[in-house]
């Protein structure tokens, strides 16, 4: 198949970007979207031009590196896939495809389609963990966990941190990402222990990073490659409200508390 690509090109974080149009020919329908990009880049290199820079790594839909906003959808038109698992059979011959980077203030463009998503790491660092050190742990079966809860926790934990939720949200909100981590722990007895501190710290960091607010539009859920449910957002809201209302007043989380 032959395609026309309109791709956002931007030299670096400080320069102004623009759309550049490319043609690619003889693309197999069974190749993946990124393999199509490889073909384009190979031809650009041969012409001595700068290839299109994009994040990608595992190409199995699990590392969460790839991040292209394709024809108005993060990760393209197919449901429940990352860009690397999107296949060209989802497009038709002669189609024009517009490829943009994730757009959000906390995700500045570094080059072409590569954005800086370290804001997500910062949110996890604020509290996305259970504070246990290595070693000295009781037996894994010491705390039985209801299967239903463990499964729900796993549903939330399936998040790959790609940022499609932010990219899809009209408000560039990170609520789905944050709530997935909050939910994973909130559902487990191990995670309950510091649940109140966790949700407050992570939400505060999320706001600090400059993400938008959740208006319950549901675009995040619709575009999430791992189909994380917005019921997690409700759970986080619940956790947050009850933490704000009920948790006792404590001093700033100190060294030992984190």
């Amino acid at each position: 198949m032959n395609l026309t690509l309109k791709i956002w090109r931007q030299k670096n974080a400080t320069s102004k970007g623009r759309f550049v149009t490319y043609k690619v020919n003889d693309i197999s329908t069974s190749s993946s979207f990124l393999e199509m990009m490889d073909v384009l880049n190979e031809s650009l290199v041969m012409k001595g031009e700068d290839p299109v820079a994009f994040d990608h790594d595992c190409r199995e839909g699990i590392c969460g590196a790839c991040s292209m906003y394709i024809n108005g959808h993060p990760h393209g038109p197919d449901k429940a896939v990352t860009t690397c698992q999107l296949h060209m059979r989802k497009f038709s011959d002669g189609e024009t495809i517009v490829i943009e980077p994730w757009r959000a203030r906390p995700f500045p463009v570094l080059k072409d389609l590569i954005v800086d998503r370290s804001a997500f790491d910062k949110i996890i660092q604020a509290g996305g963990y259970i504070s246990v050190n290595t070693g000295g742990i009781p037996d894994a079966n010491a705390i039985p966990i209801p299967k239903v809860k463990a499964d729900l926790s796993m549903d939330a934990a399936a998040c790959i941190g790609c940022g499609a939720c932010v990219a899809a949200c009209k408000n560039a909100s990170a609520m789905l990402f944050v709530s997935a981590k909050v939910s994973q722990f909130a559902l487990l007895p191990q995670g309950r222990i510091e649940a109140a501190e966790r949700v407050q710290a992570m939400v505060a960091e999320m706001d600090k990073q400059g993400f938008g607010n959740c208006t319950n539009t549901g675009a995040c859920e619709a575009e999430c490659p791992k189909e994380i449910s917005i019921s997690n957002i409700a759970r986080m809201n619940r956790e947050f409200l009850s933490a704000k209302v009920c948790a006792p007043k404590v001093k700033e989380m100190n060294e030992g508390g984190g």
Partner: protein
Amino acid sequence: MALAGLFLISFLVVHLSINLLLLFDDSRELFNIAAHFMGTNPVIQVFQIVLFGGIILHILLGIILQIQNWLARPTRYKVEGYSHTSFFSKFMIHTGAVILAFLVIHLFNFFFKAKFGELETVMIGNDSYEDMGILVIEKFKEFPYVIMYVVWLLFLGFHLDHAFHSALQSLGLNHSKYTPVAFGISRALAILIAGGFILIPVVIYITQ
């Protein structure tokens, strides 16, 4: 935002049920009694202030959130989102702005007149009541007003379509069994409230 919104929904339900009295009672007596009650009862007077507070809070929060949301995406997409979402949820600020504009006119038309203006009086039993009902009926004999109200109320309906369940979600009330019901209630409220209110000018215009 959610709490203020839910409160406003409850107000709309009360408001609608009183207004509907106009349609079921040609003598306007019931409506006038209710309007009088609403205009004089001290508890209701306190709630009136709360209501205005709620409206202002809802508007202010809405604007602040919207500004934050716009700031969160300084560069817009060339191809705006085609994600599968509920349609009206994306335009809450817009439908909200339209509703606010009409609200001002509405308050001038009815509320301020009732509160500060001189209304005709009618006798119900041995007591004299202000004839709020006739004010409404007179207004809705004019075609442009009817159209204006229908349009306004349609926007109210659009706004309400993303109201009830969204408020519950924001308050953390989501449940695999009940959330689908909340969606149903939300849609039903949007249709019933907007439809109920629309019925009043339309019926008055046709029958009078």
